[in-house]
C-alpha cells in the first residue's frame, strides 16, 4: 500500500501538528489511526456537530450529512436531478400525473434486525414527515391517499398533478424511518422520543458510537440490502471546532475528507494546487444554493425597478466570486440557479457598469445631494463569518459609488433571521436552497401570495400579477415543456424587475484524499449514502 509509505514520509513538522490535533480525539493515538485506515475506515469531519441523528426531527445541514449514511430515501438523484433507485428499485407515474407507484427493494433490514416493509414508507410520508417537517408538509398536503398495496409496493395518489413531486424522495427530504419505533406517537412524542438517541435506519452504515463533542463512529450495516456494500467498514465523523485545526487534520491525513463548512474558502486554492487532494465543487445540484442582496421594496426608493436595476449593475459579480470566494462558486445569471431544473441559459443579468447605474438613478429622478449622496439605507449584513462580512463591505462600497449610502448595523444570526422575518430591514444579504425545482425553492421568494412575516418567504414584498400567474401555471402543469415555457418567461420578467439582486451560485467544496473513490457521484454530494466510497 503506497498510502502508508507516503504518510510516513510526511515532515516532522506535520507530525508535531498531527500530535496536537490528535489530543482532542481522546485516547486514539496516531498508530491507532493508521491501523484504522488499513481496515477500511474513512475518517472525516462534521462542522458543527449535529444535535441529534434523526432526519425530520432535525433538518440542519450537518444532521442531514451524517444521517444520509444511516437512513435511506425512496430515491436518489444524479447530477442532472434525474431520480435513481434508492429504497425503491423502480417507480412509475401514470399519464395523468397523479398516481405514483413505488416498487421497493427486497430483503431490506432495519439496523435493529427487523424487516423493512411498505408500511414503514407510508408511515414516514403520511405521519412522520407530515407532522415534523414544515417543508415536507407543504408538499405532502397535496397527497390524497398513500397506501401499501402489498409489502413491496406503495401507491401515492395526488389531489392534482404536481410535476416536481418526484424530487421529494431523497433521504435529506424524506428519509424512511421505522414505523415500529414511532408507532402511536404524536408529533411532540416523536420529536422527543428516547429512540432518537439510537437512530434505526436501513442505510449502509449504522450508528456505533457517539462521543459528544468528539466523534461519531458509524459501522458497516452487515445486512445492507446491496450485497457486498458498503465498501468501507467504518465511517468516523470527527468534531473539530477550530478551522485551523481542521485544516491541519486534513493536511496531515488524520482525516481524509472535508465537507461544507470544514475548510474556509480562502484555503481552497491551496488544496486545488496540492497533488494529494481532490477538490470537488459538485454535488449541490439538489440544493442549488443561490445568494442575493435582499431589498425590502417597502423602503423608498427600492420599490422602483429602475433603482433595483441600477444597484444590480453596481455589483461586479465576477469580483465577488474570484476575490471574495476565491473562485469557489459561479456568478448568478438568473433567479433560477444553473443547477436547478428549468434554468434558462439565455437569460442574462445587465452587465456591471457603474456609469450605466448612475445614469439610471439620474433617470429615476434621484439627484445627488450636496455631499454626493442620493439616498441612505440601513444595511444588515449576513452574520455567517468573515467572507460574508467582506461581501457586506464590498456592497456598501459599490453602492456608495452610486451615491447610495448604506449604514451598517451589526446583528447576530438569530437577530438577522428575526429582522428578516419582521421586514425590519432595508438591504440585507440572503441565500436560499432551491431544492432542484423552481416550484419547490424559487417561487416562494417572488409570488405575492407568499408575502409573509416568515423568513425565506417573499419578505421583500415584490408583487407582479404576471409572475404570480406564471408560477401558478408551472406549479399546476404536469407537462415539462409547459413548465419550461412558463419558467422561461418568469426569468425574463424577473431579470427586468430585479426584485432581488442575485449574486452567486454558492458552491461548498468537498476536499478529499485523492485515493478516495466515488465520493461525489450524485446531485446530493456528501449527503449521499457512501455505499460505494472506498480507498483506491
Amino acid at each position, binding site marked *: 500500500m503506497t498510502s502508508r509509505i507516503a504518510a510516513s514520509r510526511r515532515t516532522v513538522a506535520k507530525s508535531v501538528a498531527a500530535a496536537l490535533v490528535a489530543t482532542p480525539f481522546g485516547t486514539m493515538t496516531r498508530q491507532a489511526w493508521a491501523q484504522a485506515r488499513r481496515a477500511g475506515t474513512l475518517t472525516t469531519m462534521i462542522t458543527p456537530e449535529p444535535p441529534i441523528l434523526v432526519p425530520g426531527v432535525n433538518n440542519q445541514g450537518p444532521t442531514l450529512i451524517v444521517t444520509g449514511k444511516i437512513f435511506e430515501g425512496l430515491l436518489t438523484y444524479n447530477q442532472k436531478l434525474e431520480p435513481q433507485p434508492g429504497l425503491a428499485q423502480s417507480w412509475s407515474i401514470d399519464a395523468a400525473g397523479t398516481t405514483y407507484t413505488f416498487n421497493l427493494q427486497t430483503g431490506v433490514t432495519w439496523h435493529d434486525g427487523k424487516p423493512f416493509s411498505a408500511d414503514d414508507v407510508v408511515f414516514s410520508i403520511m405521519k412522520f414527515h407530515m407532522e415534523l417537517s414544515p417543508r415536507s408538509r407543504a408538499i405532502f398536503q397535496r397527497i390524497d391517499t398513500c397506501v401499501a398495496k402489498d409489502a413491496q409496493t406503495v401507491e401515492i395518489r395526488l389531489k392534482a398533478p404536481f410535476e416536481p413531486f418526484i424530487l421529494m424522495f431523497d433521504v435529506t427530504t424524506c428519509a424512511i424511518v421505522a414505523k415500529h419505533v414511532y408507532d402511536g406517537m404524536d408529533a411532540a412524542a416523536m420529536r422527543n422520543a428516547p429512540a432518537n438517541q439510537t437512530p434505526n435506519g436501513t442505510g449502509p452504515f449504522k450508528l456505533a458510537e457517539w462521543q459528544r463533542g468528539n466523534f461519531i463512529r458509524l459501522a458497516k450495516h452487515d445486512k445492507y440490502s446491496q450485497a457486498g456494500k458498503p465498501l468501507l467498514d467504518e465511517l468516523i465523523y470527527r468534531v473539530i471546532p477550530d478551522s485551523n485545526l481542521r485544516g491541519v487534520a486534513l493536511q496531515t491525513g488524520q482525516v481524509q475528507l472535508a465537507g461544507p463548512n470544514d475548510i474556509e474558502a480562502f*484555503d481552497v486554492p491551496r488544496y486545488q494546487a496540492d497533488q494529494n487532494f481532490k477538490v470537488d465543487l459538485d454535488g449541490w445540484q439538489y440544493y442549488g444554493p443561490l445568494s442575493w442582496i435582499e431589498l425590502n421594496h417597502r423602503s423608498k426608493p427600492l420599490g422602483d425597478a429602475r433603482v433595483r436595476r441600477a444597484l444590480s449593475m453596481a455589483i461586479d459579480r465576477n469580483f465577488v466570486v474570484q*476575490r471574495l470566494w476565491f473562485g469557489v462558486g459561479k456568478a448568478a445569471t438568473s433567479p433560477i440557479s444553473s443547477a436547478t431544473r428549468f434554468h434558462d441559459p439565455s437569460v442574462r443579468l445587465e452587465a456591471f457598469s457603474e456609469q450605466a447605474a448612475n445614469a439610471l438613478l439620474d433617470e429615476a429622478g434621484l439627484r445627488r445631494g450636496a455631499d454626493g449622496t442620493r439616498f441612505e439605507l440601513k444595511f444588515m*449584513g449576513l452574520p455567517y463569518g468573515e467572507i460574508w462580512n*467582506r461581501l*457586506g*463591505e*464590498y456592497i456598501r*462600497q459599490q453602492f*456608495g459609488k452610486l451615491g447610495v449610502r448604506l449604514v*451598517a448595523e451589526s446583528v447576530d444570526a438569530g437577530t438577522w433571521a428575526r429582522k428578516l422575518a419582521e421586514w425590519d430591514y432595508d438591504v440585507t444579504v440572503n441565500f436560499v436552497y432551491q431544492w432542484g425545482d423552481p416550484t419547490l425553492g424559487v417561487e416562494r421568494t417572488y409570488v405575492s401570495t407568499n408575502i409573509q412575516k416568515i423568513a425565506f418567504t417573499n419578505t421583500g414584498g415584490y408583487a407582479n400579477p404576471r409572475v404570480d400567474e406564471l408560477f401558478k401555471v408551472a406549479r399546476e402543469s404536469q407537462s415539462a415543456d409547459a413548465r419550461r415555457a412558463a419558467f422561461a418567461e418568469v426569468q425574463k420578467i424577473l431579470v427586468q424587475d430585479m426584485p432581488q439582486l442575485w449574486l452567486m451560485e454558492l458552491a461548498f467544496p468537498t476536499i478529499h484524499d485523492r485515493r478516495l473513490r466515488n465520493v461525489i457521484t450524485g446531485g446530493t454530494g456528501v449527503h449521499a449514502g457512501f455505499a460505494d466510497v472506498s480507498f483506491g
Partner: protein
Amino acid sequence: MSGFWRRFATNRGAVAGCVVFALVLAMAAFAPWIAPGDPWSMAGPPRTDAFDPEHWLGTDMLGRDVWATIVHGARVSLLVGGGATLAAVLIGVSIGAVAGYLGGVADDLLMRFTEFFQSIPSFILALLIVAIFQPTVGSIVVAVAIVSWPPVARVVRAEFMSLRSREFVQAAVVLGQGTWTIVLRQILPNALSPIVVLSSFMVATAILLEAALSFLGLGDPNVMSWGFMIGSGRSTIRIAWWTSVFPGIALFLTVLSLNLIGEGISDALNPRLHERGAA
C-alpha cells in the same frame, strides 16, 4: 513645574514615546491630507504585496490600501482612547472624591458599588455592553469607560482620605471655605499627579480594548479601525500577511508610546526617583 519637564526630558524612553505619540496624533489630525479619500474604498488590485510602489503597505483582499486604513484607523483609536479615558476619569474622580472626602456610610456604599464593577471581568463586561447596545463609536466609548473607572475611583479616594486631614485643608475649613471650594481648589489639584499618570495608561488600555472589540467583530461597522483590520486580515494571513501585521505594528507602537509616556510622567512626578530616569 520646570523641574518636572527637566526630569521628564532626561528620560529617553518617555521622550521617544512622546515623539511616536505625536506622530500618531499628527496622522489622525491630518488623515484626510495624508491619505485622501475613503479608507474603505477599493484603491487598488486586491492583495497587492507590501512594498508595492503604489501601495507601499499593500492592499487587503478587497483592494483597500493598508496605509490609508492605518492612518484613518488612528482617528478611531485615539477618539475611543481619549473619549473613554475622559469619561472614566470623570466618573472615577467624582465617585472617589465623594467617597474619600465624606467617608463613613457614603464611602462604604460607593466602594461596594466600585467593587461590584471590579469583580466582573472587564473585557467580558465591555463585550456585553457593546453587544446589548448596537456597536457604534459611542457605545464602545461608554463600554470602555464603564469598565475603566473603578481604579481611578480607588486611587482618588485614597488621595482624598490622606489629603483631607492635612493642615492646609483644615486651615481652609477654619477660614470658612465651602465644601465644593475645598474639594475642587484645595484637594483635587494636589491629587492630580496620580490621576494624570493613571490616565495615560488608561488611554493605552482603552485603545487596546477597542481594538479587541473590533477584532472580534464588535467594532462600529461604519468606521475603519486597527482592530478591525487585524481581525479581517487574520483569515488571509497565510496569503496576505501585511493586512494584519502593519495595523498590528501601529497598535503596538501607539500603546507602547503611551506606556512610556505614562512611566515618564510617573517618574518625573515622584521625587524619590529623580535620578532613575536620568541614569
